[in-house]
């Protein structure tokens, strides 16, 4: 039993964090919003160079062969900068699907490309009515009937849907019949989709932690300078308590996210419950951070030019990505209220 990251895990996390903070300023993000695809191949190449795209890819396919525990720190860092690239869909969700599908041909074809940064992959899932980043995906993993197909972008037609968050690029995907290759079917496909959902929820939860922290950072910095009634705004007790409430929620969302990563990495029977728990509490922390950060920014919080809205919007869209609040609450309720459910002291691990 040790909740701490190993030294290697910490170094990896810090590397990702430092890189993303240095590279992805909000100026660059705003520039990306204005670009046609909203995505940046050069940035993607850098992510690959750092090893981040290949983090879950087994070493024999050119990756680092690491797991969800390492990925969760990267996801948190992605949230902190509101990264628009489909790093988590590609390198966490899709990579795990290709790794675990038992389809050697597709794995051999695509895992090395993920690791070397020459392929972005989009994932379709029934909990997401639209597919994120399909427009820049080299491959789409799409459920059809009781199977999952791997379809190159040429095999699909896309209809763009505009989201509140200008970083989000969402598409309805129509597939030509018989397009692509079979990745898996039957029980295996169901397992892969269940794992994809849990990883998707975990990725959203970890990003939400990063978003919440960024909103706190922005708010603390702003309220330290801004004066009203002859006093810096951040010294008002009401303003301090708005932010303290966010800090408490965030503090108690972190360990559930780590636990979910650990359960998912080990594919335990509690992976789904842990993922839902993590997503609910992390997104709640991020949503409260959004509300309270806008509030302590006063009228500045309501503008386009101040950065707080970038992260508030990310917090809001994470709420419904990979299962909305109702979906995850139901999963927790089903598990906790089941006959003979293991709850109470001593049942946590």
């Amino acid at each position, binding site marked *: 039993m040790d909740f701490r990251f190993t030294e290697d895990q910490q170094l990896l996390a810090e590397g990702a964090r430092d890189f993303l903070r240095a590279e992805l300023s909000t100026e660059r993000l705003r520039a990306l919003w204005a670009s046609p695809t909203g995505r940046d191949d050069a940035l993607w190449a850098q992510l690959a160079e750092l090893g981040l795209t290949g983090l879950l890819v087994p070493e024999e396919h050119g990756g680092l062969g690491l797991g969800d525990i390492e990925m969760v720190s990267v996801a948190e860092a992605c949230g902190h900068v509101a990264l628009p690239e489909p790093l988590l869909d590609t390198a966490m969700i899709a990579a795990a699907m290709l790794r675990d599908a038992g389809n050697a041909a597709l794995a051999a074809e695509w895992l090395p490309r993920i690791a070397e940064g020459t392929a972005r992959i989009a994932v379709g899932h029934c909990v997401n009515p639209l597919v994120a980043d399909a427009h820049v995906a080299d491959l789409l993993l799409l459920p059809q009937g009781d199977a999952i197909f791997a379809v190159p972008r040429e095999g699909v037609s896309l209809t763009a*849907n505009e989201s509140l968050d200008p970083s989000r690029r969402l598409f309805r995907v129509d597939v030509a019949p018989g397009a692509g290759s079979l990745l898996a079917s039957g029980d295996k496909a169901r397992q892969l989709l269940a794992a994809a959902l849990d990883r998707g929820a975990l990725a959203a939860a970890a990003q939400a932690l990063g978003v919440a922290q960024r909103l706190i950072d922005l708010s603390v910095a702003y309220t330290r300078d801004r004066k009203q009634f002859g006093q810096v705004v951040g010294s008002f007790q009401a303003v301090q308590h708005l932010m303290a409430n966010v800090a408490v929620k965030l503090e108690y969302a972190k360990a559930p996210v780590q636990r979910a990563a650990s359960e998912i990495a080990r594919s335990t029977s509690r992976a789904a419950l842990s993922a839902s728990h993590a997503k609910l509490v992390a997104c709640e922390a991020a949503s409260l951070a959004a509300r309270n950060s806008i509030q302590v920014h*006063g*009228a500045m919080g309501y503008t*386009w030019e101040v950065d707080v809205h970038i992260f508030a919007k990310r917090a809001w869209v994470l709420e419904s990505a990979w299962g909305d609040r109702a979906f995850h609450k139901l999963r927790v309720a089903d598990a906790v209220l089941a006959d003979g459910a293991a709850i109470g002291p001593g049942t946590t691990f």
Partner: protein
Amino acid sequence: MNLEYTDKQNAFRAEVRAWLTANVPSEPLKSFDTEEGFQQHREWEAKLNGGRWGMVTWPEELGGRGADLVEWLIFEEEYWRAGAPLRVNQNGIFLLGPTLMEYGTAEQKARFLPRMATGEDVWCQGWSEPGAGSDMAAIRTTARRDGDHYVINGQKTWSTRAVWADWCFGMFRTDPASERHHGLSFILVPMKTPGITVRPIPQLDGLPGFAEIFFDEVRVPADCLLGDEGKGWKVAMATAGFERGLMLRSPARFQQTAARLVALYKANRESADRDPTVRDAVIRAWMDAEAYCLTTYQTACRLLNGGKIADEASTNKIFWSELDQRMHETALSILGARAELWPHAPDAGEVGNWLDGFLFSQSGSIYAGTNEIQRNIIAQRMLGMPRA
């Protein structure tokens, strides 16, 4: 206590309803934060005024109907019920209008009110400054007396729709040696005066709802002073009372939102009930909107009989702004994964304008004095708790 409408009130409602049924545009107007939408809304104001419905509480000689506050509430109910356009000149008619009634000279009333009612003059506010948001006493923009003019220098911000407005009303420091809420004056400024520069501030949704106004040696005739020179604080407090209080946010607006939320819930019941708290939030929306309506009628009855708007301005502000946020959050919960889509997205389905309303609701707890300031006011003035 008698909570039934009189025959006269029922007849008034019937008349409003008939006119609106015949005249409300069948297609919704474009957002008044766009240039085209702004013009459409200005035309609607003219039409409304043509039917003498522009501001029913004004006296007949100013184009109104001399309606009392209860009739005004009835008018608003019918207006929202009919789905009529938002009032582009709400800052004028709901905030400056009542202030002019109270502090304006006869000449000023005759000069400003009719053109406000027709929509010929659309008004924006000049209250906040970069260093004076909730703290209005920190205003630094100056108005120097120079013969029969004031010469204005400085900067205002968060001025809603200043980009298209014809006039601005606001507070300026006429006594350069003064501090805090002394030495301020309430002045009406034509936006076309040389020396004024307007810079739009895009909002959360990217549209220019706000603007900054820069004043560089802007000369305004002295007869644009409202109330006494140096006594602007008193005039402004009346306006702020109207803003937080009854007029700017009539209960009908929130009852309409609550009814739409009930409809959204019923149309998506199976999906919505996956989260058991949603039904409760929907019911609560109805209860709270109803409580807001009842409480407003109660206040209106008091004011009708000589009472003054007081601390309820602060309780109102908190109540409606947080109600509005909760209702929109609930709507987004019901919409689930579609909540993030703009209505024009091909797969958005019937998401309506909840997302836009949600973004707008974020500002409700901030403008017209943050809710934190309102809570201070309630604690100190209404409950008598001590200042620090």
